[in-house]
């Protein structure tokens, strides 16, 4: 089995509740995401939130992103703060040598990178302009925004469309632009709402591979994927949280946590061929 340890808490949802009038949507949602350490490797985290349609995944997504305040409960995230001197999190690949300190605080809008389901972009900005707007929000990229855009565009095969408008792009290109935009903003967390919906089989694998690459780009990079495409999502995740309902209780909550690393199903390219993977998928389906 791959050697790993789970260390400091990166995100903690505590007793999240959300109601609309008398209708309880989310009830006591609790989960924790920890930093996974693999010796000699830069390994981010990929967590999936799986649930049936209408269970409250999008509401949880909005609460996690800070776009919607929960009725009660809180979400604490650990964020890097530059100190100028050596810090506790120097293994960060973003700014080697710079002092970085991790601090926990309640999530606010803008703390997390968010990729919406329809990959929404400003229709009046070209891809280059949109990416520049995001890069300018990232102090770590000061004066090197254009170089960073060029680097990401080349890596994500978007160099040829930088001067086009969102409406001129294909769905796949729009998705990659959305992801790069949020990466350029520099947040450690990337929330993705249904990133695999509406994609054909060939593109699906490319997007999954892309997300794996993103997770490997930084030790603290944490991807939270909200999806109902169980197969693809689980194949790239290290942890699965199942959002469901408990008998006799209103609202949805986390009913199950599955540690895919413990089962030997994380970080493997051909994981779908393994029997343990099929068994896990069946197990998840029965939980829904």
């Amino acid at each position, binding site marked *: 089995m791959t050697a790993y340890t789970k260390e400091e808490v990166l995100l903690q949802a505590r007793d999240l509740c959300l109601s609309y009038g008398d209708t309880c949507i989310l009830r006591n949602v609790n989960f924790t995401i920890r930093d996974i350490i693999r010796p000699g490797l830069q390994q981010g985290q990929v967590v999936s939130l799986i649930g049936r349609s209408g269970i409250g995944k999008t509401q949880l997504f909005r609460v996690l992103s800070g776009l919607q305040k929960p009725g009660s409960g809180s979400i604490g995230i650990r964020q890097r703060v530059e100190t100028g001197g050596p810090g506790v999190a120097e293994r960060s690949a973003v700014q080697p040598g710079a002092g970085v300190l991790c601090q926990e605080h309640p999530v606010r809008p*803008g703390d*997390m990178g968010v990729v*919406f389901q329809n990959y*929404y972009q*400003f229709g009046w900005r070209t891809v280059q302009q949109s990416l520049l707007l995001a890069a300018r*929000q990232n102090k770590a990229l000061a004066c090197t925004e254009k170089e960073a855009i060029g680097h990401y565009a080349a890596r994500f095969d978007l160099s040829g469309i930088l001067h086009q408008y969102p409406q001129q792009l294909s769905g796949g290109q729009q998705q990659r632009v959305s992801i790069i*935009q949020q990466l350029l903003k520099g947040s450690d967390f990337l929330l993705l709402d249904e990133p695999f919906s509406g994609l054909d089989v060939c593109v699906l694998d490319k997007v999954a591979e892309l997300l794996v690459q993103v997770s490997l780009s930084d030790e603290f990079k944490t991807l939270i994927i909200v999806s109902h495409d169980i197969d693809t999502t689980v194949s790239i995740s290290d942890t699965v949280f199942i959002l469901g309902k408990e008998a006799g209780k209103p609202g949805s909550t986390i009913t199950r946590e599955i540690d895919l690393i413990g089962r030997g199903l994380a970080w493997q390219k051909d994981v779908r061929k393994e029997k343990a993977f099929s068994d896990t998928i069946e197990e998840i389906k029965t939980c829904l």
Partner: protein
Amino acid sequence: MFKPFEKISRQSFFVMVLLQVVLTLTIWQFSAGGLIPTPARIAAALGHLLTTRLLADNILVSLLLTGQAMFWSILITLGFAYLSVIPFFSSIAQFIVKCRYLTLTGLIFIFTLLTRDGSQLKLSLLVSGIVPFFTTSFLAVILNIPRQEFELCQTLGYSRWQSLYEVIIVGKADQVFEILRQNFAISWMMITMVEGLSMSEGGIGTLLIKYNKYNDLANVIALQMVIFGIGLCFDYLLGTLRRWLFPYTR
């Protein structure tokens, strides 16, 4: 051609329109009589008008006044519309919207007292007439902005002022142009009314009133055609300018 949702070629469309115009003019030519001038008489009057400096001078006066009115109207509208997202100014913007139901006729005397000369009176009346319609159109644009545009700003860590700048000021600049285009028709229509109030400076409205006074219907209709033509030209010009300035616009 007579089926619902049937698509016809551009060429067929132009041929159809040409035939419709010829048919209308023929019916008009043979059915007109008495006081209603025939198309031939109107064409002769139009030909004569176009050769005189009188028409060009008066059109220039009207266009200058419309241009000034449009400039001030846009300035006032944008100011109040942008500020309408701030609760303190929201009520003022809403009041301006409701002013569409105020008729200017009863307020002309008050405007006369408040302004220095005829030129200012015409300008202030035009601006007062246009601004409520401009504001209504632009507030509708702001109200219909998808929530996701503001949420994208939030996810990028923008402040509220940055969101206002990006989504409303920059993002809706093309819509301002479209509203300008739509509302140009209102100001162009109003110009003939306000020019009748102070006739010393001339203008196409003054000319129209003069011909109307002597029941010179051939010249009145010829002049109406000129007004109509100029309106269409500006509509086309503003539409082209919008597509050139904002290539992303539909």
